[in-house]
């Protein structure tokens, strides 16, 4: 009971101190807000990117364009050759006639262009759609397919996808670096804020010592003050995360343009992020105030 009453008083006092010194606390709080916003945004972004990458990987297909003058026998023979390769998940044949009719159905523009060509006139190429098992080896597999006689060329999306993933992972690394730097700056700012409150309360501390306050008694209010700075700073980022993400999710209806980028459901995702933000806020706040207390409250 006694301990709880003491903690209660410490928490109350720390809270008041942050409010009283709000202009002083503002720099620290702003820094925490920025840090946590970046943390939140990079988490959301990387979640989306991972999800996107997973979806793209699931659907990794090599398109093999066959020579225009290829014979039907040769096409059937090729299927057996393709089946012999490693890393093959499935093989589908799309004839040029089928592709043409599909394209004409899709767009009246194609219809007018392709309508004149029928049968042997069809300018398109027969294709094999080959799905691979492991996306990492798709380059190798594509090369092997290309070396098969009568395969004119191959195409696969990996280059674009990998580049995209590369870009995102670079962004992630950079934002991780920025967050790290910001966290350090924040710790110093909080430490400085607490240092100033320690100095402004020198007399109080002196009297506390005189009347028999233990070191912990004296230090704890300052630690709480740091934690409060952190918590105050986490309010805006948490609200922004919860409402911002939910809004985006609803806006895009869970999809962003292409089906391969499917967004993660907001609940409980945003609450996990909120929890993480609170944890970071508390840890950064405690570290900052701990540093100040260690340096400036020597007992």
């Amino acid at each position, binding site marked *: 009971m006694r301990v709880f009453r003491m903690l209660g008083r410490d928490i109350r006092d720390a809270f008041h101190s942050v409010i009283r010194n709000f202009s002083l606390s503002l720099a620290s709080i702003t820094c925490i807000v920025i840090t946590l916003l970046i943390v939140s945004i990079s988490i959301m972004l990387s979640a989306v990117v991972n999800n996107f990458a997973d979806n793209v990987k699931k659907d990794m297909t090599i398109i093999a364009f066959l020579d225009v003058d290829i014979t039907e026998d040769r096409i059937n023979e090729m299927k057996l050759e393709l089946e012999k390769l490693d890393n093959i998940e499935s093989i589908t044949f799309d004839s040029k006639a089928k592709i043409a009719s599909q394209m004409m159905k899709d767009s009246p523009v194609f219809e007018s262009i392709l309508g004149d060509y029928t049968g042997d006139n069809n300018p398109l190429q027969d294709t094999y759609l080959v799905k691979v098992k492991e996306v990492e080896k798709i380059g190798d597999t594509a090369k092997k397919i290309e070396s098969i006689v009568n395969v004119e060329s191959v195409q696969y999306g990996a280059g674009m996808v990998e580049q995209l993933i590369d870009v995102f992972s670079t962004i992630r690394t950079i934002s991780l670096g920025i967050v790290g730097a910001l966290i350090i700056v924040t710790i110093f700012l909080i430490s400085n804020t607490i240092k100033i409150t320690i100095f402004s309360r020198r007399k109080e501390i002196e009297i506390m010592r005189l*009347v028999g306050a233990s070191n912990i008694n004296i230090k704890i209010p300052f630690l709480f003050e740091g934690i409060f700075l952190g918590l105050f700073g986490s309010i805006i980022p948490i609200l922004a995360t919860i409402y911002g993400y939910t809004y985006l999710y609803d806006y895009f209806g869970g999809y962003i343009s292409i089906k391969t980028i499917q967004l993660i459901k907001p609940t409980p995702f945003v609450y996990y992020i909120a929890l993480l933000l609170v944890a970071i806020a508390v840890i950064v706040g405690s570290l900052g105030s701990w540093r100040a207390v260690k340096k400036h409250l020597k*007992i």
Partner: protein
Amino acid sequence: MILLELIELNNVTKRFKNGTEALNDVSLTISKGEFVFIIGHTGCGKSTLVKLIYREEKPTSGEIFVGGVNVAKVRNRKVYKIRRKMGVVFQDFKLLEKLTVYENVAFALEIFGLKSSEIHTKVLKALELVDLKGKAKSYPDQLSGGEKQRVAIARAIVNGPKLLICDEPTGNLDEETSMGIMDVLKNVNAIGTTIIMVSHDTHIVEKMKKRVIELEEGRVKKDYAKGKYKRARV
């Protein structure tokens, strides 16, 4: 009967880092319930002596027992345990300007996590003892010097300490006000609190007719029994 001795100094020497020898081989005992003055010229080591007792300073050599504990050996981290058993009052009051009289006194109890009701009872009792009950809601800047010092005394005794140390509590006050403070200290002494008071006001010291320890250049020059001290007439 060692238990009757609340304070015992054995061959205490205090040399500061800069080489100043503030106390030199001081030995003395103070019993429970005594009222003792420490007097002497400026710089003779009076403040240093009491600082050693409330463990603001550590002696260079010698033992200092307070209530059976050798405070010279107490680590900095544990000093608060000693402080809880004594009250200390200074010339400059050391009140918090932003707090009322009541809150200033309660400050000494809040850190122990007492219930508000307990704090209330104890604070009022202490304010009554120093005759300041009517000023509980005032702020320090609304008080006279004598009243401020009485608040400081109330804060020092609110926790019911066995020992009250006063370093020149009347140093800033005129004679009449000082006598008022002395009356308060007499009352505090009457409830069984041992009092050690540093003073250079020989007038008051003589009037009080208590034990007087006179220091000179860091040594005990003379230890006057109750009522034996007479100040030098010019």
